[in-house]
């Protein structure tokens, strides 16, 4: 597939926002059960939510570039029964709304105990919102991932690993950002986040490498034989019917040379996993903001590469029909 930057940014930016939100809720949950103490939580959660919102908004903004008619974007809520894209379009703003409420509740300290229970599980409204938000957040991850995973003939995508990767990569980047954020805003949380960031990044490494290995062994169900319906071992296209390209040659081919394609794969494998892990490890003890920020930036850059590769690697069966200019 042709990696469209609008979609790369949509998915990675919103992944960061979602992960960061999850990190915030994680901290609050820890605090709620008394694992940790929070200092100045309203600023930490308020500003943290704002940052998450900014990432989500940037993602949303990027997504508009993907549309031919952004002014009609509202129409895309229509088919939530059948379309994961429609669902994503519904869930994303919903999620942003929840994040917004979550942040506002924290920032202004509006946090009545709605459940009427007290310790060890505090019945704060914000926590409740956070938990609801968590559910929606995962729903959003699932919607986004399923947009790709549900297309069965994009075999590289059509696997639960796609969902796992979206969740884990998004969450990892969010936690890495949270680590750096904590280093600035709440240094006592740095280690907690760093540890989680490392754990999630390692998990993501497992699922992502797993998917790479899986994709290496894919047996494509479609071939020129099924595409044109002629059974012969030697079928070669001589003309795709036009010479200077069309939507079908622009949208479904990455168009990069093989070396670039492979370089990008290695780039993301290095940038998303070992480098941030090392930086996290290095920055964890010292709460070195610069190092942790670097960890996030490197990982995010790696994710852009990862997402590029995710698209580029997907082999659309339609490409069987568009192979030769002649």
């Amino acid at each position, binding site marked *: *597939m042709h990696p469209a930057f609008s979609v790369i940014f949509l998915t990675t930016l919103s992944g960061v926002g979602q992960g960061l939100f999850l990190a915030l809720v994680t901290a609050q949950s820890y605090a709620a059960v008394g694992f940790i103490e929070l200092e100045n939580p309203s600023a930490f959660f308020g500003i943290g939510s704002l940052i998450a919102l900014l990432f989500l908004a940037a993602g949303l903004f990027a997504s508009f570039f*993907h*549309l*031919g*008619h*952004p002014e*009609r*974007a509202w*129409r*895309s*809520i*229509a*088919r939530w029964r*059948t*379309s*994961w*894209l*429609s669902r994503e*379009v519904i869930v994303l703003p919903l999620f942003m709304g929840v994040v917004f409420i979550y942040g506002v509740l924290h920032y202004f300290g509006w946090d009545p105990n709605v459940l009427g229970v007290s310790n060890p599980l505090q019945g704060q409204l914000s926590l409740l919102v956070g938990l609801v938000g968590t559910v929606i957040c995962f729903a959003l991850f699932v919607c986004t991932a399923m*947009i790709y995973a*549900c*297309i*069965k*003939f*994009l075999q590289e995508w059509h696997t639960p690993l796609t969902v796992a990767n979206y969740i884990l990569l998004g969450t990892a980047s969010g936690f890495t950002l949270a680590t750096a954020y904590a280093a600035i805003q709440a240094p006592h949380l740095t280690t907690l986040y760093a540890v989680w960031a490392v754990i999630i990044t390692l998990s993501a490494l497992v699922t992502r490498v797993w998917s790479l290995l899986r994709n290496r062994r894919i047996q494509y*169900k*479609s071939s*020129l034989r*099924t*595409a*044109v*319906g*002629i059974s*012969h071992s*030697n*079928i*070669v*296209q*001589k*003309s*795709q*019917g*036009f010479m*200077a*390209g*069309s*939507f*079908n040659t622009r*949208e*479904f081919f990455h168009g990069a040379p093989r070396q670039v394609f492979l370089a990008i794969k290695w780039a993301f494998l290095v940038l998303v996993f070992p480098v941030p892990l090392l930086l996290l490890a290095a920055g964890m003890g010292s709460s070195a903001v610069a190092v942790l920020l670097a960890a996030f930036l490197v990982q995010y850059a790696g994710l852009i590469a990862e997402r590029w590769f995710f698209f580029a690697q997907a082999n*659309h*069966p*339609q*490409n069987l*029909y*568009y192979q030769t200019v*002649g």
Partner: protein
Amino acid sequence: MTQLALVIDLNVCVGCHACVTSCKQWNTSGPAGYMSDDNPYDKDPTGTFFNRVQTFEVGNYPNTETVHFPKSCLHCEDPPCVPVCPTGASYKRESDGIVLVDYDKCIGCKYCSWACPYGMREIDEHQKVMKKCTLCVDRIYDTSLPEAERKPACVMACPTNARLFGDVHDPESEVSLAIRERGGYPLMPEWGTKPANHYLPRRKTRITIHEDELTRADNPLKKERKQAPHTIEGPTLDDSTMW
């Protein structure tokens, strides 16, 4: 239920591209408006078409088949492009099974094109909406056209009549008959999309020659021989029997 479709006869398609440009000219001035072309007089001209004709070579010299392969939306019975559309712009008509895009609703997200395994959808780079073969829905029901012309533009154009049009659910229709009797097949059956359009395979006619056909009594060479009159001297059955 009706399912209109094209059946394309690869046995006679000569790859002339008449179906390609007749489709373009009909549709560019049609209800959906123009079908844009970029760089029309410059490097890399590219434009929106609903129908393309491709060429494949099958086999090795000298046992090579050249196959011309026209390709437009297959109007799948279970079209994966439809449920994924977030706006409902892509839809399949109950009444006749035609898969269409409502250009007024389309947001140009291209998702439906990803969901078509056949590469039959093209975004119009200037109108920014997804387009595809409409099975000439604006011709086939147009009562202001003479009855014989209520057919897709490409079908009317095709010089070899390689494009048959009709209801594949009506077992008596020309297209159903062709599919049944001439081995009509769908493309990429592995995805369960159940394309309504079918393709008819190549067929070969051969001549069988029997040895005796080369040595027949009426061989004209025999007339060129100067023949001596032939009489027999000795006795024959004629002399000794009677019936």
